[in-house]
């Protein structure tokens, strides 16, 4: 028999990870889900940046570069001071890669994780598998955490893969114009490692709570859209601020997001009830 990993919280992490892994395994089998999501990630991380950066750095359309250069003047002075590049093309490419395209990294994982999370609990109920979980020894908090991890993982995985490809693209297309490989910058690392995860967690804690309460996957998707949209906007603006900002600003934004995420997650832990997995709680 395997060793049980039980933290001071009383959660059995073996079971949490089992639930998460099983959900992910099912997701991998669902081509109708991950193919559109992969396309979404490709558009934001590969096609759009590649087209824009290639146009600016290689085609050398003077008009386009000039217009883009003018746009850069609206950036905060702290951001403008960071822009590197020997030529107008290089500076424009740098600014585009580091500042203007950056927030897409927030939109993609939040969209993917929201789509997974919205159906995760209500989906168990709709498929009838909630009955199995409801009768199982798994604690409802373990079920919640398992579902959270299973929803978080695809979004964050997309970020890691997308970010890696994006970094390669940026360095290959803009690097020669600014004297070598420069991406990711320090702010980008902070955003990916410190700022993005709590925003994902906040969004998912709300989405999972909805998923535990609504009566159908369709309703969960609708409601999650309403909840996640403002969060995406906030995350977008905050991540932009992180990249533009200097000093401790990114650390502070991330820290506040982590506090909110922990509060939201601890409240979410109470949202799953066995009866809700069976679909009988609403009237109960």
């Amino acid at each position, binding site marked *: 028999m*395997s060793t049980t990993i039980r933290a001071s919280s009383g959660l059995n992490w073996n079971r949490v990870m089992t639930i998460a892994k099983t959900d992910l395994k099912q997701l991998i089998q669902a081509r109708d889900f991950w193919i559109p999501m992969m396309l979404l990630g490709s558009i934001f991380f590969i096609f759009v940046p590649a087209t824009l950066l290639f146009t600016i750095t290689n085609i050398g359309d003077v008009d386009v570069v000039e217009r883009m250069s003018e746009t850069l003047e609206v950036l905060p002075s702290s951001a403008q001071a960071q822009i590197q590049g020997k030529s107008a093309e290089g500076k424009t490419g740098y600014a585009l890669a580091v500042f203007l395209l950056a927030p897409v990294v927030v939109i993609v994982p939040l969209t993917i994780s929201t789509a997974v999370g919205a159906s995760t609990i209500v989906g168990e109920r709709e498929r009838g598998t909630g009955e199995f979980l409801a009768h199982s020894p798994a604690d409802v908090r373990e079920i919640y955490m398992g579902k959270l991890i299973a929803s978080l993982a695809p979004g964050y995985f997309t970020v890691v893969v997308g970010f890696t490809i994006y970094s390669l693209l940026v360095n290959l297309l803009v690097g020669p114009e600014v004297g070598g490989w420069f991406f990711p910058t320090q702010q980008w690392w902070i955003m990916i490692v410190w700022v993005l995860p709590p925003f994902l967690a906040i969004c998912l804690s709300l989405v999972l709570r909805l998923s535990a309460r609504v009566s159908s996957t369709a309703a969960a998707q609708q409601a999650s859209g309403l909840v996640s949209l403002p969060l995406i906007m906030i995350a977008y603006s905050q991540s932009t601020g992180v990249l533009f900002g200097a000093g401790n600003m990114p650390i502070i934004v991330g820290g506040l997001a982590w506090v909110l995420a922990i509060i939201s997650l601890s409240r979410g832990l109470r949202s799953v009830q066995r009866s809700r997995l069976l679909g009988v709680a609403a009237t109960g």
Partner: protein
Amino acid sequence: MALSDHFDVRLRTVSKSFGSVDALSSLSLELVRSEITVLLGPNGAGKTTAARVITGAIEPDTGDVEVFGVDPAGPDGEQVRRDCGVVSAKPSLYDRLSGLDNLRYAASLYGLGTGVEAEARIVEAAKQFEIDADLHHKVGGYSTGMKTRLALARAILHRPRLLLLDEPTSGLDPESSVAVLAMVREMTADDRTVLMCTHLLSEAEGLADQVIMLEGGRDLLNGDPQSLSQRFWPSPSIDITALHGPDLDRMALWPEILSYDRVEATAHVEISDDTSPADIILRLAGDGIRLDSIMPFRPSLEDLYFAVRAERRAPETGSDETPPVGESPKSGRGELDRSRPTARSAQ
């Protein structure tokens, strides 16, 4: 408070409502250790809710639930659920996963882990339910019978002390139903306590050590099938078919005949304890009545079920046709006779 050695499960005046619907209404029941208890009742009688209350999946509004001496909805509920194996009416399997992955998932959740022992248990359970050859296929491609067998294998994987089977033959063809019921019988060979919910009386026949009949979330009656039959039919009964049915009507006046009821050529008669069926046959033959068949009446659970329901309806409708429990129905099977004349004539 610990349960006595005799019972694994005890529900006392348990009620549960969903909105305005009373799923359980002051239900009390006890499951005797190592016995098969069958919860009988029509759809909506509260069978599934009772099973869910036992594992703690649903908390009752009022009343006490004890399973292995523990409240399953309380902080120690995990202990209870670890010792329960559940097969629900819908098999609750993950269609996108293989049969093997479904079993591995259960093994891990129930604390068997992922090691050699867990794998050995999986193979053993799969072989027991003859699903081992299909374990690597996705469950979405399984037939209903295969899904049920996989669900049964999953339910016993962790060797539970209590098995809860909620209509395990639901949606199966007759051949698969027979096979699954045979498997259920095998599952009880290891001294497990079993609760099986069904609305099919034929399934409970010969399987149940104890029968609990539910209706509207209440228990109509409970006990072992033999003593329940004894309560409703305390005296021996026989079904006699004559070539000319009305010839049998003279029996109604004989003192040793306690009740007489004829449908077409067949009479159902209840005879006094000190009379043997042979005496009746001899007397009929002596009167020159030509008999076609004589069958001792052995009440089935179906007979019992209809008799109980008839008895319950009698006070509501003000009918005095059906006597109280423990007394012999004056007209034999009374209400039952009128509800199923064809079956009786055929005997």
